[in-house]
């Protein structure tokens, strides 16, 4: 059936089964390839988007459950004031190795810093431990979050 969702500020209508996960709607129906498939089980965080500002595993979110909640993806982060800073920090500190997980990392980091502008190491652990980086770029991910927190 048809669902109209708000993605990065724009209304988009798709005609799909209600149990289709948001991840696949974004990637294959709306051609937004930034959110990644990693595990299909909410275990790796590569598919993380914001639903109503909350970091959400889009592979575990059925399109029928989204309703009118605004969705933001990595493609929309340049117009998110915090997201933009996170992207800049990731560039400045050369955070990515292979880069496959980094969209999810940036979405989780942006959600964290939006609520907690000056996170402790424990805050970072709690907010970011759902995002696997198989290359283990964790030292720079942590530094990237702190870089944003410490910037004026």
């Amino acid at each position, binding site marked *: 059936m048809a669902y109209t969702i708000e993605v990065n500020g724009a209304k988009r209508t798709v005609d*799909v*089964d209600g149990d*289709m*996960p948001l991840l*696949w709607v974004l990637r*294959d*129906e709306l*051609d*937004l*390839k*930034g*959110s*990644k*498939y*990693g*595990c*299909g*089980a909410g*275990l*790796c965080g*590569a598919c993380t988007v914001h639903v109503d500002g909350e970091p959400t595993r889009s592979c575990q979110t059925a399109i029928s459950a989204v309703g009118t909640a605004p969705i933001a*993806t*990595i*493609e929309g*982060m*340049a117009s998110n004031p915090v997201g933009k800073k996170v*992207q800049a920090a*990731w*560039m400045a500190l*050369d*955070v*990515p*190795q*292979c*880069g*496959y*997980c*980094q*969209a999810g990392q*940036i979405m989780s980091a942006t959600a964290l810093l939006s609520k907690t502008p000056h996170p402790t190491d424990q805050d*970072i*652990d*709690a907010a*970011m*431990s759902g*995002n*696997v*980086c*198989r*290359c*283990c*770029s*964790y*030292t*720079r*991910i*942590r530094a990237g979050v702190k870089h944003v927190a410490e910037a004026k």
Partner: protein
Amino acid sequence: MATMTSQNATHGVNLSRRAILRASVTVGGGLALQAILPGVVHAALDGSAAGEGASISAYVRISADGVVTILSKNPEIGQGVKTMLPMIIAEELDVAWKDVRIEQAPLNEATFGRQSAGGSNSTPTNYDPLRRVGAAGRQMLVAAAAQGWNVAPEDCETDAGVVHHRKSGRSMSYGALAAKAATQPVPDLATVKLKDPKTFKIIGQRIPGVDNAKIVTGQPLFSIDVTMPGMLHAVFEKCPVFGGKVTSANIDAIKALPGVHDAFIIRASEANPGKDPDGLVDGVAIVAKSWWMANKAREKLEIVWDEGPTASHSSEGFAAQAAKFAAGPPATSLRRDGDPATALKNATKVVEAAYFYPFLSHIVLEPQNCTAHFADGKMAVWAPAQNPGPGQRLVAKTLGIPEKDVVVHVTRGGGGFGRRLQSDFMAEAAWIARKVGAPVKLLWSRRDDMQHDFYRPAGFHHFKGGLDEKGSLVALTDHFVTFGKDGKPVNSSATMPPTEFPAQLVPHLDYGQSVIEFGVPTGPLRAPRSNALGFVFQSFLDELAHAAGKDPVEFRLALLGEPRILPGTPGKPDPLRDFNTGRMRDVLLRVAEVSDWKNRHRLPKGTAKGVAFYYSHLGYFAEVVQATVSATGAIKLDHVWAVGDVGRQIINPAGAEHQVQGAALDGLGAALGQAVTIENGRVVQANFDSVPPLRIDQAPQVDVHFVTSDFPPTGLGEPALPPVLPALCNAIFAATGKRIRSLPIDTQLLKA
């Protein structure tokens, strides 16, 4: 170690005079350089030779506006070569990095030489040749300027993409010179003048990854992001038992499901020739208008399998066989020095221990996938290939079409770690796409990926070590039980070299091997075989150090002795490849210093440091791990210090540091929780809940230091990994008195 074979290729000392450089004017008047260096020998990551006479090349375009396009020849899987290799050319070409644009080179091994991501080979095999490519381009640009000004080329100099003639005050940009430079005689790469490294402006700088902007904004970049008009999506259900065949399947019922375009049985026997280790296997393909629909239809799939002989294999059974082997003598001798039996009998102290490491999955984050399109008799594939050349050949063989009719587009890979050296996913996608007659993207689920890997082989080691009255190691034996076929290890990942350290330093030594017959696919995983042998040997040496009552660093230093070369092949010394005890001493001493090793006894109860070293992929690494073990047995990783010697030049310090940190944390993640177990011929684990990758809340700080030595630069994708596992286990022993002899670490054993 044995994963590399070519000293000449590595060190550029034998660039043939036949080495040629072709130049041509490209569309738009730019200068194109295409260098071909013959006579280079490579080795695959798994140790097999790729053949003599392959060539290396690089490709440079300079447009009239001064933009310099440099092709990066090898696949990028997170190891940083797409940034690092072009840096080498840009340095000698003498252009400003801001003017450089980088393109992934197309697969063309006739022009570019071997294009693989494996064996930490990119640096040693390309550093010198790519410098020469850049220098040759610079020489042609200078010649063009000198000719125009009617001055001697020797009186010209270059800087940041401009040729200067200081005497007359004239200057001209590379962009303006490019067309004319392309008509200049081609310099001899073997004698072209290289820069004095003291004047380097790009090499040695921290240069960020060239794809970072696309990565952080979520632009399509990876193979999984490829899309084409009319593209369909596929899943491929393979037999859970390795080597199993399809008897029948409910194809008609699947075809009737919503969104399904087609479904069909694939029989490996139909493929040509179907015998490659990574060749097509039996299964059922479902092709649908979206991946989600294809994967959903799969839930309704009913397949009758003929599971075949591997169905009786299990990890438990393997362990029982290993125990049986261990009770007897090894089937094959790998090395024998002196009289180990007598030496053990006469030793003051004998230490005996059995070690085990499990099968491991690569768990790349981007699951295997490939987009394929067959049109006009030609197959085009887009894939995160680590080894696109063999991939091209596999696709051609599988389809029974000429190699020239297979075009491989190499995308950035979402991790590799050795998994994508195999090209099975490319063969599958190509087969399905040709059958369907439309562009098809095949994507594996996480379960597919974990249950159809080429696993790091498990292994069993049975050691005896004899110490004399002074605490010196005088005798060592190891009965290694590995996996294979017909009594031989299945591939080099399952082998132990006769020179495995500390061979050649112990007067009485015996290495022997027995082989368990099995049907589980295996292959190279980051630092193949070193990732396993480092754990067992550096852990057992630690046991011996403690038994001798010696400081583990001092015990290792005594074993290394005076700086000298331990030949990899008897009678064939190779000073650039053989184990250099002096280089290892230096990194060991340095890691002791930076980790404050001598004050480790001041650490609180339950916290301790452990040390280990390992030489692999031409890199010398010594590492110290500090860990805290709680009364419940829980392990907290406090800190890692890693010191490496990879020669005289760190090309990109930002990338180098990243590789060392990543490799060390990767090894710690494997040690803490990862294993693949086999039951009834199939893999038990299916996702990250049962094979946990390391997460940020577990990741300690990793301090990275490099010792520079006067040796050619070598690679960093792998050598920092092997020592970290034993360093952790040795720290756990120091903290608890409990020795970890089996991976992953069972924290139940560490309870106070």
